[in-house]
Structure formats: C-alpha cells, structure tokens
C-alpha cells in the first residue's frame, strides 16, 4: 500500500497553471527525488505535500486518509528548508528540541532524543552553540536533526544542498542516503541537480511545465527516457531525428540500424537517443558512423569529444582515450545503445509499450 498519494492535483496561481493533474504514489521507506528545472512546479508540489499550499483541485492521501485540508502543523511530516530556516534566537539544542517541546514531551525524553539525533548528524558537542557560530554544513545538519527528531513518516527536503560547496555537497549526499537507510523513513528530496538525484534516489520523479514527465528508478530514467526533455535534462545525450522502419529497425542520418525498440507504427517519425559514453571510437572501416572531430577536451576521467557527421549532425562522445585523428574516424555502438522515443508519447503509453515487448 502506498504511504502518500497525490490524486489529480492541480494548482493555479493567478491564472497560471503551476501543476497540471499530478498523480504520484509514494511508498514507505524509499528515497524519492522530485527533479526538474526551476519553474517546473517541483517546489509547489512539495508545499502541497507539506501542507503549506492547498491545491486548487485534487487530493492528498496519506495512509488512505484525505489530508488535503490539514494544515502543515497537523501532518506527520517534517521539512528541511532550502535556507535551513533555523531559529537564530535559540541555540542548537533548543532548535532541535523545538518540535518535541511543542508536543509537550517531557524534558528527560527530549534531552535523550536530541542527544541521539545530534550524534546521528555528527554534532554531539554543539548543543550550546548559537546558529550564527556554525558553518553552512553544520547548519544543514542542525536543520536535518531538527526535522528527524520528530520521527516523521516522511521527511521533505527542499533543495537542502544547493547552498553548500561541491565537496561538502557530495559528502552530504552520501550521508543523507545513509541516514535514510538507517532511519527507514521516506525521504522526498526536491532538486534541480540531476547528478544528485541519480546518486541518491530509489525513485526519481522528473517534472517539467507542471507535469510529471517520467518517474522510475534512476537506471530506467537514464537508459529509457520517455521524451526529448528527459533525455536532455538527465545526463548528456545525442538526439537526432529518425524514422521507425519496422520493429527493431530504425533509420537515422540516412542509414538503417538495428535497435532494441518495438511497438511503434511503421514509418513513424521518431527521435533517437545515443548517450555519449555509448559511442566508441574505432577505425573508419569498423564504424557505423563516420565523423570529423571538432574539438577535444580532457575532463579528468574521460575525454569529451565534439564531432560532426557529413550531414552536420553534432555528436558528443565520451571516451577514455583521445581520438588520434581528427578527420574521418568511425563511431561504433550496439543496438541496445540506441533508444528510440516517439514524439508526444505519454508516460503511460510508453510504459505499456515497453511492457508489450520486453520480457
């Protein structure tokens, strides 16, 4: 049974539709990411879940009960806010104890629970510190401790890592993931950073224009994006126009290729996605495609090579070794590396089609 559901949730602000008919299902104990560019409606969705906004229409169902009209202070969820929103007039201990104190938990229990979560976020000796004496990373931890000490069913995180520097952010990603597994509570993590979402989540919900574009495991979403937006937003992609000739036969850049997709009407116009790391550099004779290299740049663990074919389609290649020649190199890829997307296919139709031929 699902823990939380949004059913046909629509949100309109001043005639602007921010969320369109959202349906999502959140299961217990999983790490979810709501991923999308700014203005995609992801924060609005989080505010509807947490109870700070009331949807224009639709329902929020929590453990089978409609909680659409419950205010934020009556929901069994807690939020870690983007700018932490700690209370500057209270010290670390008092910040963390705030929620429990409101619930009239006795002081002994509070002090025990606070000590435990502070240990969990590695801030054991910071109880008496003022908030403005803490670094950004430490404030972040206090914010997390303040939320999880209440033992919520769902922890909502609104881009909590965006203010941290790169290295700290990576560390916090691991720690958050570990924390989620230790506590076993459901995390809903809002972010615009696709790498973050891929690294941490059990499930990703990709949002754009107020619509859920695709939801699924990170691997599914990366390998089988439903449309141009998802393919482009998550990871890097080469996307070219093509035509479906038959099941497992697709034509693009003027050639026919074997592919792993089926269930698409013959001769339909489609888009073809090939990930840059799936393109291997080979000799002209072995290549399925012949390209000329425009530029190469070293990225530490790989080379990023920009190339174009004779029809002037650009190809991005990730390769462990640099291309030795710049004119007329071959590109090789397997049929499974080709991913075919129908234009304007909904996520439902996409899933159904995949199921029809994938055993």
């Amino acid at each position: 049974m699902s823990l939380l559901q949004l059913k046909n949730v629509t949100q309109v602000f001043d005639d602007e539709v921010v969320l369109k008919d959202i349906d999502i299902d959140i299961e217990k104990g999983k790490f979810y990411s709501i991923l999308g560019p700014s203005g995609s409606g992801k924060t609005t969705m989080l505010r509807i879940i947490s109870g700070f906004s009331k949807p224009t229409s639709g329902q929020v169902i929590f453990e089978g009960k409609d909680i659409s009209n419950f205010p934020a202070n009556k929901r069994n969820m807690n939020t870690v806010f983007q700018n932490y929103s700690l209370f500057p007039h209270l010290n670390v201990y008092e910040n963390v104890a705030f929620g429990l104190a409101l619930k009239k938990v006795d002081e002994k229990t509070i002090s025990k629970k606070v000590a435990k979560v502070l240990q969990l976020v590695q801030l054991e000796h910071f109880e008496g510190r003022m908030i403005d004496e803490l670094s950004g990373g430490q404030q972040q931890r206090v914010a997390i401790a303040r939320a999880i000490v209440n033992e919520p069913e769902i922890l909502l995180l609104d881009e909590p890592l965006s203010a941290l520097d790169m290295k700290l952010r990576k560390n916090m990603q691991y720690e958050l993931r570990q924390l989620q597994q230790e506590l076993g509570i459901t995390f809903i993590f809002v972010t615009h950073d696709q790498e973050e979402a891929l690294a941490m989540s059990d499930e990703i919900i990709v949002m754009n224009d107020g619509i859920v574009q695709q939801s699924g495991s990170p691997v599914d979403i990366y390998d089988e994006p439903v449309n141009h937006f998802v393919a482009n937003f998550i990871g890097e992609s080469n996307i070219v126009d093509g035509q479906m000739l038959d099941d497992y036969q697709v034509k693009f850049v003027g050639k026919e290729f074997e592919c792993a997709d089926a269930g698409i009407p013959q001769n339909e116009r489609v888009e073809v996605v090939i990930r840059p790391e799936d393109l291997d550099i080979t000799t002209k004779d072995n290549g399925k495609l012949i390209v000329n290299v425009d530029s190469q740049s070293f990225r530490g663990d790989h080379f990023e090579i920009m190339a174009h074919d004779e029809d002037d389609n650009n190809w991005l290649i990730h390769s462990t070794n640099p291309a030795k020649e710049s004119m007329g190199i071959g590109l090789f890829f397997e049929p499974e590396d080709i991913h075919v997307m129908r234009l304007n296919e909904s996520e439902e139709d996409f899933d159904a089609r995949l199921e029809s031929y994938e055993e």
Partner: protein
Amino acid sequence: MNKLFSRIYLTILIILLYLPIFYLILFAFNKGNNMGVFQGFTLSHFQELFADKRLISIVINTFLIAILSSLFATIIGLGGALLIDSLKSKKAVNTYLSLNNILMVSPDVIIGSSFLILFTVLGFSLGFMSVLLSHIAFSIPIVVLMIIPRLKEMNRTMIDAAQDLGATNFQVFSKVTLPYLMPSILSGFFMAFTYSLDDFAVTFFVTGNGFETLSVEVYSRARQGVSLEINALSALIFIFSLIMIVIYYLLSVRSKKMIKNGKGRVV
C-alpha cells in the same frame, strides 16, 4: 600615529560632552547658593532635596509616567509594526511608515498644542491622564520605528519551519516571532522611556494644575534662578542612569550566556 590621533580625538570629545554635567554635579556640593564660585564642600543641598516633599513626588510622577507610557506604547507600537508589516501592498506600507515618520519629526510644540486642543474640545480634564495619554501617543512612532527594521530582516521561512514542527499560529508568535523581535522591542521600550523622561514641550501644554513632571518643574523654578537643590537632583539622576546602563549591559551579557547554556527555555 593614526591610533594616537583617534585616541586623543575621542578623549577630547568625551570630556567636552561630559564637562557641563560634571560642572553641574560639582556645584551640587557647593557651600554657596549659586553656580558662580565654588566656596567649599557641603551636603546641605541633598538634605534640602530629601526634605522637599513636593520635588520628590514630582520625581516619582515623572518616572511613573515614563514607565507606564513606554509600556503601553511598546505594546501598541508592536501591534502596529506587525500590522504594517503584514500589509501586502508596498504603497500602503510606505504610506503608513511616512505618516509614522511625520509624527517623529514634527516639533513637540505642535504636537503638544494639538493635544491641548484635542483635550479641550473633548472636555478632558488636564492632569495625570492627559499627560500619560499624550506620552503614549508620541512614543508609539518611536517604538514602531525601532521594530520595523528587525521585522524586515526576519527570515519568513522561519515561520513556515515553526508550523512545520507543529506550532499553532499563537505558538509561532510566542515562541518565534516575539523572542526574535525581543531585542528591538526592548530598545523601543528604552527609547520611549527616555523620550518620556526628557519631554518638556508636550507635557507643558497638556498638564494642568497640581500635576507636574520634572522637566516642567525645573523649568518653572529656573525662571526664579536655579537653586542648587536642582544640581543635587541632577547628580542623583545621573548616578541612577549610570546604574541603569550597567544593569542593561550585565543583562545583555547574561542573556547571551543563557542562550549558550539554555536547555529548557523552549519547553
């Protein structure tokens, strides 16, 4: 060199500012009867002062008015600041703030005479109440002005965070907004307190027979030549202010320490 210069500059400045007060205090101990020449040490002016029942009761009245008016002004001003802040339209906020500031800058004489007219028209008898009401009225803009900036820099998501942690609207106010604003509320209160103690012009207009505050009394006595009793009173008030400031300082240091060691304050 630069450091030396700033030291000398500041020392001279402080001496210049305090010199008249110390001069006044010095002559509180003068054997003579005026501020002309220091003729020797005596405490007789202090004895005179403590025997002067009328002056003592005026001092008490003055402090009573100051405490009551600043207390009411702080409560009313806090409400006003919160309401102004809650306004959605920027234009309305600016209008209210400008109206507030006009009261701040308009001369006491005008405010005093307008209160006099108001009380006369209403048939309100002049005395303790009229003085108290007008002191409350001219203190409110000060309090509003002290609280508004702190409200402006308040992070609004703090309120979301409190609600998220289960706080009702009242608890958000009592446990987050109010404690957060407390420093500005306190400074508003103290500003209002000193404004009320200081005030001469407004009180002069709205006070009636039988009720006087210190400034009005000193003014009327000064017209017959200041007696050294007033010097003695000034000396005492100066020492009192000094003690108040030390207490204020100790309190603010202690509240910082309390936050550091605080465990039970939210409970």
